[in-house]
């Protein structure tokens, strides 16, 4: 334990430590010299490509992929073009950027996945420099072309190339540049001599870092922190300037006293760290700079590369793999020489306890007196998370557990989850797996992603064990791993369809939420259609089966599966697909067997393809619908002849459908249209398109009584309606004479109250009175009241001895003026026999 601080170096207020992660398992002849090297963050894989020999382009270099511990994962001769840059995506895919701007994508086991181009402009002027970067939107590629222009793709899974504006006055390649992610946009920061520019989509803006040392005449190197929040610049005068990446604030500036151009520079800053710090690497020398004048220097024996991480920098050389980081706060508190922090005391107490010494009690008392025991436990747990050696982790956790015994109601979650996390981390850090994740990184990348990474490495068993151990919900955990396993399994050519289908179904049987269609797709892609169909049978989501079935040209099955799913959009998709694939006859036949699909297709045709709709009705001999179809069509025609022709077709169809009523009605409609046209020609009245009722109203209002009469007879209009119609039309015209004549023409089928009311409506009380006498006894009271004759109403009501009518009249009397009347009415009301 005494050695914990052995590798600590002070810098300003804090300490830095360099931990050995692995002794590399690879056996490289020349170390990393003359190699293109790319190591993925979060302890990802390392790719190596021997530099191309320009003199003998036919010599094929070997591309090699290793785990972080240097175990080989893949190796193959590079046959494509000249590679400018290697890099890893967030999902552990290898990107190889060629000189002509083509980017080749490989998985981490060396399988070729796809390639894409960075655009014509790039391929014409060739790639000068490339940077591969990660942002919340995925993995991006930035290219500086021979024409000194930048082209950028923010997310290689959804490529949208952006060509950035020109940098003014740029003569040769810029001295250095970097990609920033700010305000949801990827920008490029370029240094050209002493000048700095920010390039975004629209503009190139010159910027000045605040307080940059005046001795500097050019910026020779720059790097951006893992979080894109901070920026470090190295000037030709050997000064390292550190500040925020928006260039608003300077954090520190340190003179390294070294003027040569460095090989690499990286931020070495832990979240919540005390001070900004960066690591600069020259040949054989590594320098850590912070806020103070002093620096930490490490000697490097070998060619190395720096891999920036969230909480430090990894240093990979031909033989070793190390992590350089600021010592985390909790570790510092506990292990600093002569620390009196509660965690340190607790650790001490536990040590004494193990030795069965009573000093344990003294230490404990000391912590408890300051009521810091829970703080002590927390410190020990946290520190355990930051320690790499399992022995140290255990010591700290035991101390924490010991401290917990003296606390009541201390929440156990933190302790428990730390124990579990460490167990998982130690498992993946193992030499054979080679993922040297720190606890901070693990929390940031999440368990989900770790599982994915294990799956990419085909470490299925370990992945499942981890899921089970951490009790991940099946859907996100075990099931997902099994799906990946199955996808891999179906590509194994040497086994038969039956064997594989059985193996897959047996293993996956109990797992919830398995997407069999994805597995089937994999099988189909590797040319095993039969296996794919077998696997699809296991898929519970019928909707998921459809796209693949279509791809495999199993359309009838696809259609019935789509219908089964209830998702009408899916049914439409299949129907539209079939429509393009099959000839019309076959297509209609298939629809006929699937009524759900047929009615949906009819809906579609109604809006989009009227003629097809007609064909469908014809095929089914659906005369009723054909009739409706023609009726609808008739209204789309402007010319009367065409309209009538359509209606005639409708009539024929309705007769075929034995729908006499519709046929007759439509014939009536044709008759009316002809009549209207004839009259329009003769009398110049706008009539076509009016209903029968409106036509007659118009005729009456212009005095064409004969013609109205004719329609009334021809269309066998009910008397009642005709009387209402004529009554209203005449009153509207205020043709009172004609109205009176009409009232006497025969006995009114609607009675005479309407006459009274219509007159009143047109403010003609005088005319109204004429009809009161003719009103039937039941309506007399109403009629009298309508013309304002209260007395008359009273007479009528009293005569009829009707209580409710008397009440109605009473409500219309005013007590002052109609005093006598009210009395009479009240008397009459009293004598009305109660029912």
């Amino acid at each position, binding site marked *: 334990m005494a050695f914990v601080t052995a590798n600590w170096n002070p810098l300003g207020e804090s300490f830095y430590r360099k931990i050995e992660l692995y002794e590399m398992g690879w056996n490289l002849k020349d170390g990393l010299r003359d190699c293109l090297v790319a190591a993925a963050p979060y302890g990802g894989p390392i790719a190596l490509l021997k530099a191309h020999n320009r003199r003998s382009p036919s010599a094929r270099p070997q591309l090699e992929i290793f785990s972080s511990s240097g175990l080989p994962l893949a190796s193959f001769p590079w046959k494509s073009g000249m590679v400018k840059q290697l890099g890893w995506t967030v999902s552990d895919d290898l990107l190889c950027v060629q000189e002509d701007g083509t980017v080749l994508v490989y998985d981490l086991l060396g399988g070729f996945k796809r390639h894409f181009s960075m655009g014509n402009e790039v391929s014409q002027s060739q790639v000068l420099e490339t940077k591969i970067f990660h942002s919340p939107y995925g993995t991006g590629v930035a290219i500086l072309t021979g024409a000194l222009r930048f082209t950028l793709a923010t997310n290689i899974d959804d490529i949208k190339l952006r060509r950035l504006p020109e940098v003014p006055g740029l003569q040769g390649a810029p001295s250095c540049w970097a990609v920033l992610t700010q*305000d*949801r*946009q990827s920008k490029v920061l370029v240094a050209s001599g002493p000048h700095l520019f920010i390039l975004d989509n629209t503009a190139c803006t010159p910027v000045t870092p605040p307080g940059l040392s005046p001795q500097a005449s050019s910026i020779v190197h720059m790097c951006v922190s893992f979080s894109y929040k901070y920026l470090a610049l190295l000037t030709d005068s050997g000064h390292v300037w550190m500040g925020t990446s928006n260039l608003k604030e300077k954090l520190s500036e340190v003179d390294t006293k070294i003027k040569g151009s460095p090989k690499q520079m990286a931020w070495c800053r832990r979240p919540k760290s005390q001070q900004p710090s960066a690591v600069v690497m020259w040949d054989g020398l590594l320098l850590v700079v912070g806020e103070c004048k002093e620096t930490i220097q490490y000697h490097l024996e070998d060619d190395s590369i720096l891999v920036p991480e969230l909480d430090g920098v990894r240093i990979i050389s031909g033989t070793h793999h190390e992590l350089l980081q600021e010592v985390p706060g909790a570790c510092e508190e506990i292990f600093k020489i002569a620390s009196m922090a509660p965690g340190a005391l607790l650790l001490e107490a536990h040590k004494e306890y193990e030795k069965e010494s009573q000093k344990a009690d003294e230490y404990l008392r000391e912590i408890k007196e300051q009521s810091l025991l829970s703080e002590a436990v927390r410190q020990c747990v946290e520190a355990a998370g930051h320690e790499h050696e399992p022995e140290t982790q255990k010591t700290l956790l035991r101390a924490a557990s010991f401290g917990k015994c003296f606390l009541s109601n201390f929440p156990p979650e933190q302790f428990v989850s730390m124990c579990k996390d460490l167990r998982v981390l130690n498992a993946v850090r193992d030499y054979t797996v080679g993922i040297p994740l720190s606890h901070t990184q693990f929390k940031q990348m999440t368990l989900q992603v770790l599982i994915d990474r294990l799956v990419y490495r085909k470490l299925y068993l370990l992945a499942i064990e981890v899921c089970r151990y951490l009790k991940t*919900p*099946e*859907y996100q955990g075990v*099931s997902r791993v099994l799906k990946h396993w199955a996808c891999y399994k179906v590509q194994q050519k040497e086994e038969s369809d039956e064997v594989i289908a059985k193996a897959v179904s047996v293993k996956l049987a109990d797992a*919830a*939420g398995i997407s069999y269609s994805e597995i089937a797709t994999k099988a189909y892609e590797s040319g095993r259609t039969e296996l794919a169909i077998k696997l699809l049978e296991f898929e*519970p*989501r*019928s909707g998921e089966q459809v796209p693949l079935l279509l791809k495999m040209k199993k359309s009838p099955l696809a259609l019935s599966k789509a219908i*089964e*799913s*209830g*998702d*009408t*959009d*899916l049914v*439409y*998709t299949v129907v*539209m697909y079939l429509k393009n694939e099959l000839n019309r006859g076959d297509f209609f036949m298939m629809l006929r067997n699937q*009524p*759900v699909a047929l*009615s*949906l297709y*009819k*809906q*579609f045709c109604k*809006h*989009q393809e009227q003629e097809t709709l007609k064909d469908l009705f014809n095929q089914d001999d659906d005369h009723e619908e054909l009739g*409706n179809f023609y*009726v*609808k069509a*008739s*209204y*789309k025609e402007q010319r009367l002849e065409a309209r009538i022709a359509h209606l005639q077709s409708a009539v024929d169809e309705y007769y075929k459908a034995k729908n006499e*009523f*519709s046929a007759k*009605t*439509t014939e*009536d*409609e044709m008759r*009316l249209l002809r009549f209207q046209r004839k009259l329009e020609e003769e009398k110049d009245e706008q009539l076509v398109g*009016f*209903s*029968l*009722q*409106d036509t007659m109203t118009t005729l009456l209002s212009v005095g064409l009584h004969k013609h109205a009469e004719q329609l009334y007879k021809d*269309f066998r*209009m*009910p008397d*009642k*309606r005709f009387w*209402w*119609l004529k009554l*209203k039309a005449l009153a509207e015209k205020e043709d009172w004479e004609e109205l009176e004549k009409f009232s006497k023409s025969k006995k009114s089928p*609607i009675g005479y109250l309407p006459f009274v009311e219509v007159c009143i409506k047109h403010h003609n009380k005088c005319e109204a009175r004429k009809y009161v006498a003719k009103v039937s006894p039941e309506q007399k009271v109403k009629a009298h009241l309508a013309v304002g004759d209260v007395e008359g109403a009273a007479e009528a009501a009293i005569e009829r001895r009707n209580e409710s009518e008397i009440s109605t009249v009473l409500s219309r009397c005013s007590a002052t003026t109609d005093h006598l009347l009210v009395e009479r009415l009240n008397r009459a009301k009293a004598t009305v026999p109660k029912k």
Partner: protein
Amino acid sequence: MASHLFCGRVNLNILREAARKDLREFLDKCSGSKEHEVEKMFTLKGGRIPSAAVKNIVFFVRPRLELMDIIAENVASEDKLHPRDFHILFVPRRSLLCEQRLKEKGVLNSFTNIDEYILDLIPYDGDLLSMESESSFRECYLESDQTSLYHAAKGLMTLQALYGTIPQIFGKGECARHVANMMLRMKREFAGSHTQILPVFDTLLLLDRNVDLLTPLATQLTYEGLIDEIFSITNGYVKLPPEKFAQKKQGEGGKDLPTEPKKLQLNSAEELYAEIRDKNFNAVGAALSKKAKVISAAFEERHNAKTVGEIKQFVSQLPHMQAARSSLANHTSIAELIKDITTSEDFFDSLTVEQEFMTGVDTDKVSTYIEDCVAQKDPLIKILRLVCMQSVCNNGLKQKVLDFYKREILQTYGYKHILTLKNLEKVGLLKPQSTMRNNYPTIRKTLKLWMEDTNEQNPNDISYVYSGYAPLSVRLTQVLARPGWRSIEEVLKMLPGPHFEERQQVPTGLHKKRQPGENRTTLVFFLGGVTYAEIAALRFLSNMEDSGTEYIIATTKLINGTSWIKSLMDSPEENLP
């Protein structure tokens, strides 16, 4: 802002928040809109999009082909010099068909983001969810297009993801069966993916609208129902004639009357409205005057406030009191507007006829009232409502009667309505009498659909919402809760479609342990629409002292007789280019 969603037993705000989160996530994806600042909103129409100084344009659309054509036109006529980013958000679901159409039009690649906004059930009130799918009834029953049912099933799955698996499902009708089948299938499909939640709902009842065609045809007589019948409530808002709402300021005696319609939001966040919305309109007057007294008494309190403390307390209550007073003024005005109509002879006559039909008086012959209305050329929808009602209450009309009505309508309103009449026949609202016995009277008697002694002021039965008629749909719901559907097997067989019961496994440990006296919660889903009066009736059941069940209501669309019939009409002239 959404206080009205909290008031019920089930906190529907959870659903609202989940939906808001999804929307925010989408807007996040459209880079640049970091503050989700929406500059302007436009209604979708052809041509070029009106100019606005923005970088991103989001189309927020239902997945319908005709809308895709408009969008394509919008995108195509975009100013090439100042390109903006386009995004599409489909509500409630992406559609391959629509994307295909955009591809055909050559604009699919112009979109930076294409995504879906899964918003099936929209919370309208503390106990009310609606899909606002206008044409759902028409699509399901007329056009055999069950798209909206798929969305309904998906919506129910979302609901179960948030509120736990619903252990019991009951249903009546073809559509109900279809939805239940899809739900059970989806449940299998997503096995294991749901986090475990203690069930909030005990029962789900799925009801087809065509099981009860009668209720929406009848004129609603609750306060809210009448507001909807007369002024139509859209998306929780109503527009009212402005005259009655003129601000009377001293000095200017109504000089400038407002001309814009008065727009009011209606939901239970408004205390007074929550109190009176579900009352029979005849009981609203009394409630309003009682409230007026309470409010003026509260204002009088100021005279009693003597000490500084008392005055301070009075002042602190002022905003609340003033809000109450303006709310009272609004509803008094609305009630007056409604009263003008309900006291008219026309209204009385048509209500009388409706009630005669519902009680089975003279339903087998031509009604003189309808005849007169046609002769007067009253609004067509009113006629259709009445004729359909007569047909439903008589289990079909004699061929002669039916043909007479049809001819009357066609001659008066135009032959083009022949298609509308055919539609009404297809969905069963109009039909010729079959040889089968008219079973409506049996249904009416068994389910007690007509109550003679309805108390409108202090109701003791749901029939108060139609002043005598108890909505069939709600009776079915009521009987299901107690004593159960087994008691009405015979009647259920007379109503269209199958009735069924399904059980969904709830993981052990999630079985609800009911406290004694704790109510059950039932979600009633009306497929094809629900009226405000039916909602009122269900709320009445929830509030009944010994009911033992509380109801949450979901529907494809809030309807009334007029909007419903309108959705079934076909007027070919409107399709003219």
